[in-house]
């Protein structure tokens, strides 16, 4: 081995120019591979941290009647999970499950803004996620940042509007949403809104109508309690607005059979029988009372209180959910847990099925996959080019050294000696220049990560795996690059070694 190392090392020094060319390619290859891997790794880790831990959990459970997996971003109405208590029991009994949060999701039409000015075929649509806000914050690591107003307390009703949704409503409807009981916060307002602040139309309550499968949804009056944004990837989830579960269920008619059979007083019966025109009167701006004391007035709570007094109604269905976010102890057990839960649901005839977070986020996952594929193709391309150039250089080197190799063979060096000598020479270069490339790539990754480059649109958020460009180079990544580099080196040396092994001892004299 000492002899091999000696010959290999001295040959590299003897052909400095060629060694430098191969070294430079290996250096550049290792650097690009490190950076590429850092970006891919950062994107994956970012997506995992931001989506799993702050948004979806590892698994999503939905009704087995829900045919599409990408339910989170699909505008299609979601089916109610019919057997929630059984699902809850299954989740509580699964030792892989760390936490779960039942929720509801659906698309609503906002009736009291825009609709007065626009034609009915251009309604304002918003996506609602009905959650117990306190549990939601706990489950998703306090992922929501309140920018104005307040959150929802325990059992408090209300709506939290995403900051982008407010902007969208302002741009399309010229109405600025204000959390109930708060004044205009100029620092949060866009220049257009500021320029017309004196005449700016504001709203602190919305009338929402759920868009369900059977068009039997109810209109619900909801106060805007706060303006918020997700701490990470808000650009991707900007259309999600949070609402309390009770209001959501009312809005989507998730009521018990007892409630649907409730008798109402004559006065309220008139309200229920009202025509579309007269309903508009109830929800027109002049009919709504804003400011303190509103909660006790004409809202649905008041109506329900009256009905409750009659002792005929319990409330909305307490266990009506169409979505359950599930967090596991760690991501490695995702597939196994998914399989177990689905088997259990299927064998018990439970109306539920679990899907992985990647499937649930639909197009986001697809786009992220495309980014990863593109980056991998780029890294592979660099890999390929490096292999070709190194093969070419090493082949020329081998051809030039034919008499030397022939002499070695003639005086008794076996083929394996020649093979080892060539591999060792290339490995020397790979170790030296590859390590330099790996270290430089890692430092560059750290540097880029420290720049805190912000994503300016959804695509960049996906490419970055978060709101800032945060490539990651850890031990795993370095090992990955090291393996890639070793593969490049070995692939590059295969053909030259094949040529060298074909050199006959006769070549020691035949060339002279």
């Amino acid at each position, binding site marked *: 081995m*000492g*002899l091999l190392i*000696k*010959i290999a090392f*001295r*040959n590299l020094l*003897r052909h400095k120019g060629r060694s430098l060319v191969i070294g430079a390619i290996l250096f550049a290859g290792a650097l690009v591979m490190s950076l590429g891997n850092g970006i891919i790794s950062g994107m994956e880790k970012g997506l995992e941290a931001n989506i799993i831990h702050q948004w979806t959990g590892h698994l999503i459970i939905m009704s087995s009647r829900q045919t599409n997996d990408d339910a989170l971003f699909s505008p299609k109405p979601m089916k109610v999970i019919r057997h929630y208590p059984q699902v809850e029991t299954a989740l509580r009994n699964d030792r892989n499950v760390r936490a779960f949060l039942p929720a509801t999701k659906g698309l609503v039409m906002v009736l009291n803004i825009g609709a007065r000015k626009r034609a009915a075929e251009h309604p304002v649509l918003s996506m609602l996620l009905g959650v117990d806000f306190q549990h939601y914050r706990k489950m998703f690591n306090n992922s929501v940042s309140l920018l104005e107003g307040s959150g929802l307390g325990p059992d408090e009703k209300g709506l939290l509007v995403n900051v982008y949704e407010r902007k969208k409503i302002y741009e399309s409807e010229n109405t600025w949403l204000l959390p109930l009981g708060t004044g205009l916060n100029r620092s949060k307002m866009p220049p257009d809104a500021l320029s017309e602040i004196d005449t700016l139309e504001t709203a602190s309550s919305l009338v929402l109508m759920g868009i369900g499968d059977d068009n039997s949804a109810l209109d619900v009056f909801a106060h805007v309690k706060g303006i918020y944004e997700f701490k990470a990837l808000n650009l991707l989830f900007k259309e999600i607005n949070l609402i309390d579960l009770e209001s959501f269920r009312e809005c989507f008619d998730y009521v018990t059979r007892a409630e649907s059979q409730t008798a109402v007083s004559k006065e309220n019966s008139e309200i229920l029988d009202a025509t579309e025109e007269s309903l508009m009167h109830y929800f027109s701006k002049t009919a709504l009372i804003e400011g303190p004391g509103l909660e006790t007035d004409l809202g649905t709570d008041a109506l329900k209180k009256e009905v409750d007094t009659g002792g005929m109604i319990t409330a909305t269905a307490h266990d009506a959910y169409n979505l359950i976010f599930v967090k596991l102890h760690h991501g490695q057990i995702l597939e196994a847990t998914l399989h177990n839960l689905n088997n259990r649901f299927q064998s018990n005839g439970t109306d539920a099925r679990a899907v992985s977070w990647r499937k649930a986020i639909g197009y986001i996952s697809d786009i992220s996959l495309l980014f990863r594929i593109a980056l991998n193709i780029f890294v592979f391309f660099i890999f390929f080019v490096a292999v070709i150039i190194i093969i070419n250089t090493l082949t020329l080197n081998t051809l030039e050294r034919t*008499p*030397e190799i022939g*002499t*070695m*063979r*003639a*005086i*008794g*060096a*076996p*083929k394996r*000696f020649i093979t080892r000598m060539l591999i060792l020479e290339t490995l020397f270069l790979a170790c030296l220049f590859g390590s330099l490339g790996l270290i430089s790539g890692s430092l560059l990754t750290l540097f880029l990560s420290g720049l805190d480059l912000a994503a300016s649109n959804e695509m960049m958020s996906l490419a970055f795996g978060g709101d800032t460009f945060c490539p990651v180079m850890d031990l795993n990544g370095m090992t990955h690059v090291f393996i890639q580099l070793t593969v490049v080196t070995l692939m590059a040396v295969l053909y030259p070694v094949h040529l060298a092994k074909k050199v*006959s*001892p*006769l070549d*020691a*004299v035949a060339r*002279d």
Partner: protein
Amino acid sequence: MRQIEITQVTKNYRLGKTTIQALKGVNFTVEEGEFLSVVGASGSGKTTLLNIIGCIDAASEGSVKIDGIEIKRLNDNELTDLRLRKIGFIFQTFNLIPVLNVFENIEFPLLLMNHLPKKAVVSRVNALIEQVGLTDFVRHKPAELSGGQRQRVAIARSLVTNPAIVLADEPTANLDTETGNSILALMKAINMREKSTFIFSTHDPEVLKYADRIVNIRDGRVVNPEPPVALCLDGRGY
């Protein structure tokens, strides 16, 4: 004792569509410890014959036996091992390994044998360096040596494994007369001392005086072996 037996050896080369017959049924034997010269004009087939004896080329037909072993029955690894342990080569163009110094070039075959203690290796190499008169050039690389010095290194390298046979293809062709004579004298002295069989090819009549026996080869055939003095004196230009 008969060390090499060559029987009806032919060697054909294909050159495009033409087949060239370099050896045409060569027969001869070599005894152990002989200092034998293969003589012939350029293209007569003497290098081809040496290559076949040295197991770096294969005969197209016929039989070559070294110490009773039929070499065409050996595979590549066995041939390599035979070359390493039994045969030493001295090439016309020296063929030293450029990145190794004098000591390391001579040491190279011993390291390939891979089982000798370091002390024995150093002692054997130093002894040979002294024999070939290169004590002052131990750390020199081939590029820093004259032609004669390089050939001395090649001789030392060929002898380092104590081979039974040393093959030298025109060892003096690239050397001036004085250096050539000194190289031949050195080879002869080693032959006398080590009892190794030396077979060298040449077309220089001056060096034939060192040979115990001469094999005269012409157009791929061995022609009447003649005593060295007669060849030297007949003025046929060998």
